């Protein structure tokens, strides 16, 4: 055990048990998986992506590239989880990845021997020939050998939530600068949201031993957190990672609600997606310590110095007892002090001439080698370290830990999400955000203010700027007294003369040699370098590797780093589970469900429902003993045509159009004229798009001089509403007309069949339903149950038919009332399938024909196009291509052999013509078995179709049923004279 006897922010009264690769270990509440592994002396935690090299824990935060594990098991398994960001819980199960057969003994580590093959861009070079081997052999091989964790392939059993946040100031990151900013804004009364990815606020304050205003920095962070929690205008989201910044000052974050628990409580989501709109935001994401590039720098036991300090100070876990601290920065010397105080033996290797802390640490027993570098490390985990001294001589030292302090890079990735280009700072030797997106200000270490006092002051100052911006004035920023924190660093991008592999990008196994090779081969742009070498890809997106890689490329191409530039960052900043983006919108909840007023009644009648957009519509009502749906549908059609049937047509779009200019607007919307429509009459109308193709059809009824009621198809209801609003608001705002959707206000039932009038007379004895009082296409209002109801004599089935409407609230009562009245007529409920069969028998166009590619003439309604007025689509419908008489137009088809079927989608060929596209004469749009005629029928779009009644044509359907010979006929199969509808 490497757990220190005292100290740390762990709860020693709360021991936890967890397993790693099946072996049980102990930890404490407050540990991360990584800190618990360090405390248990587990140093080998994974295998690398390409070479299967043994890897340990590199960092103590979200930037971790190495320590990726699969957390939990079965359907709950989550691959590629960073051990450094997982809060330990009792019973936690974790497994290492990308090793076979075991982590200690990995056969594919032999890949290292073939390392010359796996250089940058190897898959472009090595596996090229023969080309056909790629898919079958090379790719599966590479996929098996290289990679990270594997998915469970089981459905995700967790629940995810979504929340919207609105605030004056969003503070991203709860370290020194973030806390100072949130305190200032919170005290000033701003609505503040503070998001922090850690389980507790404080950031590096929890990992370093500093004093703020005379108290330990970790305690100060705790007090700041308590003050923020007590402010009603401040909302703090712990365990929340802000992963993207979007246009319009929108910020997206994932809150890990239950990831730190063995199992989410009932009803609790695992994670929650936050979409936050913030007037101002402060990017207080801190900085990321850079590794140093020397031979064997990836070996288990080599860590960043800041990680070593974090494990010692925050988790009381000592990562090694004989430590080499390789420090090019002052912060590394603080780590050396932490190690000495924890009882480790320390050698400091610093490439610089001098360091301010040298004397102090020498007195405390550290060996100090100035002007020296670590050249190579051997052993897995680390056993020996080779140091090149200032005089050029080599010295090999025994060690079990190497701490790398390569300097700090501000964590500005989020700030470049919207395209802001980072700029090089000579002062801090790193990239900074110069031109942050509107409303966003970097602060603290993220703005290059690495020393604690500077970070606190900058956080407070940025908050004051935001407060002044929003409120007009701001109180003076708070001042903080801190212990000394030196932050100077001299960059050392690369240790020359090393022997072993020196890694730049640990996650993608990109070495210094790969970058040099890419440069030699001409991949000298930063973006090309990334694609060619994979530097900065995968789950960590190069958080620890980017700058080292870009500095090496700059050196190889003779440019400065400022000239070479850096890459921008896209969301997500950290990996995000797909499930949390979907939230509750999955399976049946993928989208809302719309039910008509009598849905419950229909379900009780045994209806099978079908989706029509979001609507659930009754497709048919099967009765006991019926063998299949076709038998049911045939019965529904026969009973309707034989007596009377009732169909719920409430889903049709309904729009009230009111105002003195309503007739004018309708004349411009429809190809035919509505201004001449008498009050109390309905008329069928066709609308075009402005490009001349049919958009929708339906009936519109005039209930008053300036009062119209339009119906649309179910599918196009929203589009037509939008179209009408465009016409009256944009095209002709001078018209005095209003339009509003009333689709959901009315429940409407079609009552069709020879006994329809008798049924309705029985149901509504007070209404005069005679042909004289309510002729075909007549409409009337009447009172029912104290409400206004409506009756329209319109027919889609070709039968004597009425549509009866009542307020939706009365829909259920209305359908029951109609069927009570229909008892003596054996009234039948029919669904959309019977509706479809009857409309095909009548040759009415529907969705299959209104497919966005047909003209009014194609559908046999060319004569409805008024020549006396302008309307939307008029001019373009006259284009030669749309007016071409050879365009396929609507016809009916009957199979010559009456026992054969015709299927929708089949193409039409002249008899004897070969089945090639050039001979295509049209296609079948809708087909059905007609119980009325006793054989299959279809309607189709056929070139010169209306001139060819009586001719024969081949219905060509090679995929489903072969060829069927058919007779071309008029598209109205039943009652072409229309005597039934007028009966």
């Amino acid at each position: 055990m490497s757990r220190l006897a005292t100290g740390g922010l762990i709860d020693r009264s709360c021991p936890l048990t967890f397993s790693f690769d099946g072996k049980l270990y102990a930890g404490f509440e407050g540990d991360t998986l990584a800190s618990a592994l360090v405390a248990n002396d587990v140093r080998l935690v994974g295998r690398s992506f390409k070479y299967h090299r043994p890897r340990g824990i590199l960092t103590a935060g979200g930037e971790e590239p190495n320590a990726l594990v699969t957390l939990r098991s079965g359907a709950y398994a989550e691959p590629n989880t960073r051990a450094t960001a997982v809060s330990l819980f009792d019973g936690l199960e974790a497994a290492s990845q990308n090793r076979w057969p075991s982590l200690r003994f990995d056969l594919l580590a032999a890949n290292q021997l073939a390392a010359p093959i796996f250089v940058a861009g190897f898959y472009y070079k090595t596996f090229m020939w023969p080309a056909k081997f790629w898919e079958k052999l090379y790719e599966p091989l590479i996929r098996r050998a290289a990679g990270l964790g594997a998915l469970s392939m089981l459905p995700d059993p967790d629940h995810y939530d979504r929340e919207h946040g609105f605030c004056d100031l969003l503070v991203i990151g709860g370290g020194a600068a973030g806390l100072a900013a949130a305190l200032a804004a919170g005290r000033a009364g701003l609505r503040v949201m503070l998001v922090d990815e850690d389980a507790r606020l404080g950031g590096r304050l929890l990992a370093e031993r500093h004093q703020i205003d005379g108290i330990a920095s970790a305690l100060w962070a705790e007090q700041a957190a308590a003050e923020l929690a007590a402010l009603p205008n401040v909302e703090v989201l712990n365990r929340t990672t802000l992963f993207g910044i979007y246009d319009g000052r929108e910020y997206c974050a994932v809150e890990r609600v239950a990831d730190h628990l063995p199992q989410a409580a009932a009803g609790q989501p695992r994670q929650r997606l936050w979409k936050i709109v913030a007037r101002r935001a402060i990017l207080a994401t801190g900085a990321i310590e850079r590794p140093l590039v020397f031979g064997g720098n990836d070996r288990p036991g080599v860590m960043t110095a800041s990680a070593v300090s974090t494990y010692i100070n925050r988790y009381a876990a000592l990562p090694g007892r004989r430590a080499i601290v390789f420090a090019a920065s002052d912060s590394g010397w603080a780590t050396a002090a932490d190690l000495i105080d924890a009882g480790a033996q320390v050698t400091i290797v610093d490439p610089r001439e001098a360091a301010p802390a040298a004397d102090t640490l020498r007195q405390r027993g550290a060996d100090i080698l100035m002007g020296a570098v670590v050249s190579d490390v051997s052993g897995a985990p680390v056993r020996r370290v080779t140091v090149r001294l200032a005089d050029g001589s080599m010295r090999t030292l025994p060690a079990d830990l190497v701490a790398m302090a390569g300097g700090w890079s501000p964590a500005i990735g989020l700030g470049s999400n919207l395209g802001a280009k980072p700029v090089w700072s000579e002062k801090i030797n790193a990239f900074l955000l110069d031109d942050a997106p509107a409303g966003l200000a970097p602060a603290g270490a993220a703005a290059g203010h690495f020393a604690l006092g500077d970070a606190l002051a900058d956080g407070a100052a940025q908050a004051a700027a935001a407060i002044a911006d929003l409120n007009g004035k701001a109180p003076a920023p708070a001042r903080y007294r801190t212990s000394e924190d030196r932050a100077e660093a001299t960059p050392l991008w690369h240790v020359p003369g090393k022997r072993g592999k020196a890694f730049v990008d640990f996650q993608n196994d990109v070495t210094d040699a790969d970058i040099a090779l890419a440069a030699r081969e001409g991949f000298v742009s930063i973006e090309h370098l990334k694609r060619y070498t994979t530097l900065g890809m995968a789950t960590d997106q190069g958080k620890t590797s980017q700058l080292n890689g870009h500095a090496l490329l700059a050196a190889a191409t003779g440019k400065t780093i400022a000239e070479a530039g850096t890459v921008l960052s896209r969301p997500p900043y950290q990996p995000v589970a797909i499930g949390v983006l979907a939230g509750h919108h999955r399976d049946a909840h993928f989208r809302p469900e719309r039910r008509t007023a009598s849905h419950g009644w229909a379900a009780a009648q045994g209806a099978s429902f079908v989706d029509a957009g979001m609507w659930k519509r009754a497709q048919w009502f099967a009765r006991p003993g019926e063998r299949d749906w076709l038998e049911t549908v045939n019965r529904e059609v026969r009973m309707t045509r034989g007596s009377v049937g009732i169909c719920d047509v409430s889903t049709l779009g309904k729009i009230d159009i009111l105002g003195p200019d309503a007739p004018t607007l309708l004349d411009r919307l429809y190809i035919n004229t509505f201004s001449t429509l008498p009050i109390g009459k309905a008329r069928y109308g066709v609308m075009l798009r402005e490009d001349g193709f049919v958009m929708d059809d339906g009936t519109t009824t005039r209930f008053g001089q300036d009062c119209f009621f339009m119906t649309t198809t179910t599918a196009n209801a929203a589009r037509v509403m939008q179209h009408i609003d465009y016409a009256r608001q944009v095209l002709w705002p001078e018209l005095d007309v209003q339009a509003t959707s009333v689709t959901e206000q009315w429940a409407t039932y079609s009552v069709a069949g020879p006994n329809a009038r008798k049924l309705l007379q029985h149901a509504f004895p007070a209404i005069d339903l005679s042909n004289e009082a309510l002729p075909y296409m007549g409409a009337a209002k009447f009172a029912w149950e104290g409400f206004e109801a409506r009756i329209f004599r319109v027919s889609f089935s070709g039968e004597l038919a009425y549509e009866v409407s009542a307020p939706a609230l009365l829909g259920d009562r209305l359908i029951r009332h109609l069927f009570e009245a229909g008892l003596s007529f054996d009234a039948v409920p029919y669904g959309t399938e019977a509706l479809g069969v009857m409309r095909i028998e009548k040759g009415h166009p529907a969705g299959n024909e209104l497919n966005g590619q047909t003209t009014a003439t194609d559908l046999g309604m060319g004569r409805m196009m008024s020549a006396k007025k302008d309307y939307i689509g008029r001019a373009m419908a006259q284009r030669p291509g749309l007016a071409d008489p050879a365009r396929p137009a609507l016809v009916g088809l009957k199979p010559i052999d009456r026992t054969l079927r015709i299927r929708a989608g089949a193409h039409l060929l002249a008899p004897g013509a070969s089945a090639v596209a050039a001979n295509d004469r049209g296609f079948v749009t809708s087909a059905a078995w007609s119980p009325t005629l006793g054989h299959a029928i279809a309607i189709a779009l056929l070139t010169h179709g209306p001139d060819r009644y009586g001719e024969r044509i081949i219905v060509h359907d090679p995929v489903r049923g072969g060829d069927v010979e058919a007779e071309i006929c008029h598209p109205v199969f039943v009652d072409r004279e229309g005597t039934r509808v007028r009966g």
Partner: protein
Amino acid sequence: MRLPCPYCGERDAQEFVYRGDAALQRPPADIATNAADMFDYVYLRENPAGPIREHWYHAQGCRNWIVVTRDTSSHAIEGAVLAKAADR
């Protein structure tokens, strides 16, 4: 992305339906409309890099068509007016 609906205030862009260039003028409602003018109106679009005035429909809000001034190269939104009140 958020849009400043002149009627409802700033709203999530998901509430809106996009249409496009608001500068287009439908040729006058004249039976003898030149087909070429109509063709331009229906099919030809400018695609500027920079500010553009465009039509959006607040379908899940007030159902107003609005004219939004947006910079296509930065996505910055300068403002919005109701289409029926916009200069044409």
